[in-house]
């Protein structure tokens, strides 16, 4: 496609590769006269501006020259790396002269643009070339076999490459080798080419086919292969391009006979050695592959001959051709439509004919309406073969789960040279892990959630805390898992009961003096009645008298009023007590209204139990005191709300320090959502580690809330859900897909979370054939096939089973597949089940698919009451889905279901997260957890930095599945402890039968399952005697229905035993006891 054109009859030279923007220099041609027969000459520089769609080239500078040119080249000599100085323009003139111009000066419009000039040559200088290795070296050729080598740094005295060839002849072409810097070739119209070795200073080989018809018009070295070159002939009788290899110089390696008449110029692309341009007297410009002889492209030209043709060094798709009709055209070989050209022609026409729409009808004149057909002609096709520079050899793209897909095309060059290259075609999938600390902390958190070792975790965090505040937060969190949490909160706030006692004692001792006074006063008062002897009831008119009268008439109210009025507070209160509750309350109120002491309001609140007042109106600097008061006095049902309220006040305060303290209040309140909001405000959440900071706290707090407040915490607020999904996204991006899934909140219909869950599930590669209605978070849209058919509508079927049944373990990898690097072949074969049928028998049957259970916010459970699946509200009717179907529920347990024998085993998910619960069941127990302790699956402790995600885990699974079920049996519970099991189970049954609301039932079900942990420990006999004894005491108190005693014993056990030893079952036991107490069974 033609890009630009300039109406000049000129030689042309592109600016060197380094130069940006791209310039084209033209120098008036010495051989041709243009239509005006003008003899003036000029050197012009144009800029190639491809962002301008028009065909015009922008002229940057014109220099009127006294010379006309036979050859023009542009060398990069002395160009600085930034391309600021524009090299050297070297021109071959008519009279043996070579002129060096400074293009930057021409562009600047300078008068003095000639750097140097030398007319040592004889006759016109037709051949010029710059050495690409040493850009200061220029070779030139003229008549009489003259060849000179010029050093641009020392232009006065040229060198010769050796003795002149005989007989003397014109040198029409000269070219430096592209691979070896001291090799030069020259050619003459006589058809001979000579190759010179400048180190030896002599010709080393002469190339000729002895036909006498090769009139060399072009010579070019192979860009890549040092020993190959092409020669073009302008003789109409032999219009060929010969490809020579100097190693076999007796005859041409290949002859390209694509032109009908003599060839005038050739140009070999430096960017792609398979592209050779040639133009000839048949008015064709061809692009052929000199290595095969195939014509790849014919440029759409007019019927004029071209005498010069050049590739643009910087833009490999661009070339320029100078034609005898006085035009230089710039083409792209990439094809495209020639809109610009048409436009220019239209413009020209309109400028010649004036307004083509003289009547203003909006209709152009008829001739130009036709081009509909010409439009077709104007579409220019690109090269037959794609040029090298658009063939992308390398690439790396990220995909979900932090995977990086990379490919490269490494050429293994064999000794045969460029034509025989082997290429390897590999695509690599790597796991990119960048946040190691983040992952390891996330791991720790999961382990803690599983092992329930919250206290030690919090303690660790406290120890590692960098800031006081951080330490506080973790201390507060830790308290949640301890007994007497409120007391401990108080301690944290600086109110230790013992300390306070001491302080008061101290204070009392100090004020010894006043105490004595009080004693004295007492003595006096004791003395007074005895001194009076008789009891005088005065009914005088003073206050005393009035009070007396009121009392005598039983009018307590008035008496109290009188006392108050007289500021006899103690009297008033004492009277009010006698007057009954109502009066007392009124009196208290009145008292407080009158009293002005500093601590009155506190006393008010304590007496009136009005904590809201304190929390609402205290000075926020005293938030600690307010919180302490709430901790001490507030009733359980209002406690959370009060903490919340205080937190909200702190948060809305401008002081950022106080804002952060609000977090502590929220922790006391157990308000996860507000904690998240407050924390987010204070921290920069975009950093993975700060998000980790937050999530750690949130997870622990939720656990705490679950334990202490025994409430259903499955609901997740909007903000928390967002943070959790951010967190899951981060985990996924690091390749921890199973972990991401575990942290993702369930029971939420928020679209982004549902989508992420779906993506994570499927990313794990879990097809669940036969299981209906996977949660697809989108409406599936149908894209019918191109050809309509009866099935075109909703015809998605489960995926071809062949792939799923693919028995990896038994087949060697298909030929051509190379297991790479560290991928252990053993793991590769072990990672899939040996046969589908096998699995049926070995996987213990589960009653039915279960509700998603993902761990972090759920109590570990062995089994669940089947629950109706929750559908998203916008759920579409189940459409059977093609292909690799996700596990719809995200439930790693259900992934073990026997319904999917064919599934390539859900590796990472299973082996990793929920396993302990799973293993707590009947079947797997003995294998994986011989000690009955929730063990840490290996996959979690180390991030998937190496190895296929899940691959090493595959082994475990294989083992699990290949062990026959019969062997897996549990030890019996020792007889003496069997009573514990029967008692507890009996109690749960009783509770269940009298419980009414489903939530309680669910809790009890859970408890029943979680007590399995206890039974396991009993079987293994791993519990310490104190705990065993304690449990037996609890059992006895259950027998006697004294649940509160049981609870006391429970508290005692928990406070005296190792938390990690009892954490798996003691909280559950507490729940059961509490329920039993409540239900009174």
């Amino acid at each position: 496609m033609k890009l630009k054109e300039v109406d000049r009859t000129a030689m042309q030279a592109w600016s060197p590769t380094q130069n940006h923007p791209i310039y084209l220099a033209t120098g008036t041609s010495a051989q041709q006269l243009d239509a005006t027969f003008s003899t003036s000459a000029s050197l012009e520089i144009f800029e190639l501006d491809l962002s301008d769609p028009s065909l015009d080239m922008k002229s940057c500078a014109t220099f009127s020259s006294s010379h006309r040119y036979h050859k023009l080249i542009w060398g990069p000599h002395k160009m600085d790396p930034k391309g600021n100085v524009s090299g050297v323009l070297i021109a071959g003139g008519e009279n043996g002269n070579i002129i060096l111009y400074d293009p930057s000066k021409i562009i600047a419009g300078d008068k003095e643009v000639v750097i140097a000039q030398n007319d040592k040559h004889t006759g016109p200088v037709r051949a010029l070339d710059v050495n690409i290795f040493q850009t200061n070296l220029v070779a030139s050729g003229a008549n009489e076999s003259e060849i000179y080598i010029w050093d641009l740094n020392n232009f006065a005295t040229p060198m010769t490459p050796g003795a002149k060839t005989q007989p003397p002849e014109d040198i029409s072409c000269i070219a430096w080798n592209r691979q070896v810097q001291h090799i030069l070739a020259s050619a003459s119209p006589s058809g001979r080419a000579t190759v010179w070795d400048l180190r030896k200073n002599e010709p080393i080989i002469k190339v000729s086919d002895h036909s006498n018809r090769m009139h060399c018009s072009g010579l070019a070295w192979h860009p890549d292969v040092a020993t190959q070159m092409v020669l073009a002939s302008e003789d109409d009788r032999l219009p060929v391009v010969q490809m020579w290899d100097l190693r076999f110089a007796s005859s041409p390696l290949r002859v390209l006979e694509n032109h009908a008449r003599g060839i005038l110029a050739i140009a070999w692309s430096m960017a792609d050695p398979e592209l050779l341009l040639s133009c000839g007297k048949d008015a064709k410009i061809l692009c052929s592959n000199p290595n095969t002889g195939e014509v790849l492209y014919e440029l759409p030209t007019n019927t004029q001959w071209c005498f010069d043709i050049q590739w643009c060094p910087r833009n490999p798709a661009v070339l320029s051709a100078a034609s005898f009709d006085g035009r230089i055209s710039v083409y792209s070989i990439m094809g495209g439509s020639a809109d610009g050209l048409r436009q220019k022609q239209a413009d020209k026409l309109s400028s010649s004919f004036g307004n083509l729409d003289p009547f203003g009808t909006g209709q152009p004149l008829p001739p130009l309406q036709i081009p509909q057909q010409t439009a077709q002609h104007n579409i220019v096709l690109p090269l037959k073969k794609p040029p090298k520079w658009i063939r992308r050899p390398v690439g790396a793209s990220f995909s979900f789960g932090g995977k990086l897909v990379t490919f490269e095309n490494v050429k293994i060059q064999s000794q045969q040279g460029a034509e025989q290259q082997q290429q390897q075609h590999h695509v690599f999938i790597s796991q990119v892990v960048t946040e190691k600390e983040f992952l390891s902390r996330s791991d720790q958190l999961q382990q803690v959630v599983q092992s329930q070792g919250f206290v030690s975790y919090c303690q660790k965090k406290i120890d590692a805390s960098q800031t006081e505040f951080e330490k506080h937060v973790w201390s507060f969190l830790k308290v949640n898992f301890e007994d007497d949490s409120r007391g401990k909160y108080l301690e944290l706030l600086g109110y230790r009961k013992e300390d306070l006692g001491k302080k008061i004692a101290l204070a009392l001792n100090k004020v010894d003096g006043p105490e004595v006074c009080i004693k004295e006063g007492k003595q006096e008062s004791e003395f007074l009645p005895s001194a009076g002897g008789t009891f005088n009831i005065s009914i005088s008119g003073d206050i005393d008298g009035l009070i007396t009268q009121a009392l005598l008439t039983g009018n307590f109210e008035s008496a109290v009023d009188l006392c108050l009025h007289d500021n006899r507070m103690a009297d008033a209160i004492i009277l009010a007590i006698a007057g009954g509750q109502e009066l007392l309350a009124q009196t208290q109120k009145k008292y407080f209204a009158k009293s002005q002491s500093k601590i009155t309001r506190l006393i008010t609140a304590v007496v009136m139990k009005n904590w809201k007042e304190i929390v609402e109106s205290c000075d926020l600097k005293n938030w600690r005191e307010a919180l302490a008061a709430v901790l001490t006095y507030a009733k359980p049902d209002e406690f959370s709300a009060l903490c919340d309220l205080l937190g909200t006040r702190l948060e809305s305060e401008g002081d950022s320090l106080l804002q952060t303290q609000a977090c502590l209040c929220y922790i006391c309140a157990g308000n996860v959502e507000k904690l998240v909001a407050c924390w987010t405000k204070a921290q920069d959440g975009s950093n993975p580690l700060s998000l980790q900071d937050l999530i750690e706290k949130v997870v622990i707090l939720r656990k705490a809330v679950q334990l202490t407040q025994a409430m259903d915490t499955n609901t997740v607020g909007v903000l928390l859900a967002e943070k959790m999904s951010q967190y899951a996204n981060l985990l996924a991006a690091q390749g921890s897909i199973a972990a991401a899934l575990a942290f993702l909140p369930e029971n939420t219909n928020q679209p982004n979370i549902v989508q992420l869950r779906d993506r994570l599930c499927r990313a794990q590669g879990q097809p669940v054939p036969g299981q209906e209605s996977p949660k697809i978070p989108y409406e599936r849209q149908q894209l019918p096939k191109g050809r309509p058919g009866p099935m075109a509508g909703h015809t998605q079927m489960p995926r071809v089973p062949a792939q799923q049944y693919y028995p990896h373990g038994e087949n060697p990898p298909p030929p051509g597949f190379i297991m790479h690097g560290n991928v252990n072949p053993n793991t590769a074969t072990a990672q899939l089940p040996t046969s589908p049928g096998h699995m049926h028998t070995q996987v213990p049957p589960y009653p039915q698919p279960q509700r998603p259970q993902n761990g972090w916010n759920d109590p570990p459970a062995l089994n669940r009451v089947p629950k109706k699946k929750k559908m998203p509200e916008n759920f579409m009717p189940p459409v059977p889905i093609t292909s690799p179907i996700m596990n719809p529920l995200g439930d790693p347990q259900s992934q073990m279901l026997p319904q999917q024998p064919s599934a390539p085993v859900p590796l990472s998910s299973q082996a990793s997260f929920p396993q302990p619960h799973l293993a707590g069941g009947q079947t797997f127990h003995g294998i994986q957890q011989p000690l009955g302790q929730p063990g840490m699956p290996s996959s979690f402790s180390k991030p998937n930095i190496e190895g296929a995600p899940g691959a090493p885990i595959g082994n475990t699974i294989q083992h699990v599945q290949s062990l026959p079920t019969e062997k897996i049996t549990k030890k019996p519970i020792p007889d003496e402890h069997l009573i514990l099991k029967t008692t507890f189970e009996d109690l749960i049954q009783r509770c269940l039968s009298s419980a009414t609301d489903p939530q309680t039932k669910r809790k009890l079900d859970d408890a029943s399952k979680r007590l399995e942990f206890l039974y396991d420990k009993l079987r293994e006999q791993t519990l310490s005697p104190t705990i065993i004894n304690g449990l037996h005491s609890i059992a006895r108190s259950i027998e006697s229905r004294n649940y509160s005693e049981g609870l006391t014993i429970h508290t005692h056990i928990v406070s005296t035993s190792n938390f990690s030893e009892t954490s798996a079952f003691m909280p559950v036991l507490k729940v059961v006891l509490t329920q039993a107490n409540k239900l009174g069974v």
Partner: protein
Amino acid sequence: MIHDAQMDYYGTRLATCSSDRSVKIFDVRNGGQILIADLRGHEGPVWQVAWAHPMYGNILASCSYDRKVIIWKEENGTWEKTHEHTGHDSSVNSVCWAPHDYGLILACGSSDGAISLLTYTGEGQWEVKKINNAHTIGCNAVSWAPAVVPGSLIDQPSGQKPNYIKKFASGGCDNLIKLWKEEEDGQWKEEQKLEAHSDWVRDVAWAPSIGLPTSTIASCSQDGRVFIWTCDDTSGNTWSPKLLHKFNDVVWHVSWSITANILAVSGGDNKVTLWKESVDGQWVCISDVNKGQGSVSASVTEGQQNEQ
């Protein structure tokens, strides 16, 4: 010679395309590698493949030197051609699906300088819009901006379809990156020209949205430079480039991680490097990806194909 390899939305399937005119789909779950489909239909080297969002089914687009864009679809477990777009006059170098929120829209950039936009209008029909002369002598890459609703999300009246502003970036042989925006009348208009490269722009990649108001684009070029362009203002008109690195050779491809914090840069020296922005805003190379070692977990190998 492989020219592109892309995982699907879930990372369970890999599509590759090659000089041998084929498009291949592999199942790579759990480190396996099973050839699912070998799609034939192109008559030239296939440059790029792109997976559509799974809500539209299993759909793959491929573009080739043969001037065609082919859209493939899996039906009943077999992959078939569902549409062929022949509207370009030269090599189609890049295909990219729009964010799924817009529907099925494919942008295609071609060496003929044009960019075409194919929109699925239902019943097997595709509507074509073409931007002619987008990049003189060739468009090398197209990349959609993430779906962002103008203004805050909360302001959006519920139930109403959000009024997205559709944008994409393109890079070409005119050394420019251009940003295109769909006008209200459905026409595409050049919104911005980003100039910094001194040679062909080989690839552009608009970073996924991570909820921040900043837009980010990575670009790489024949000139060896990789730029990170950012735009903070809401009008989207002020873009400032930051040089990530100047390589010694052409840089072919840039790709953002899903969380938009890591950029993978693939260069002509067959090297892949990963870059991450440090706290002080500088881009640092965090690793060279050495294939076949360490982090590599699986490899899919195409046979030794004859490219002739």
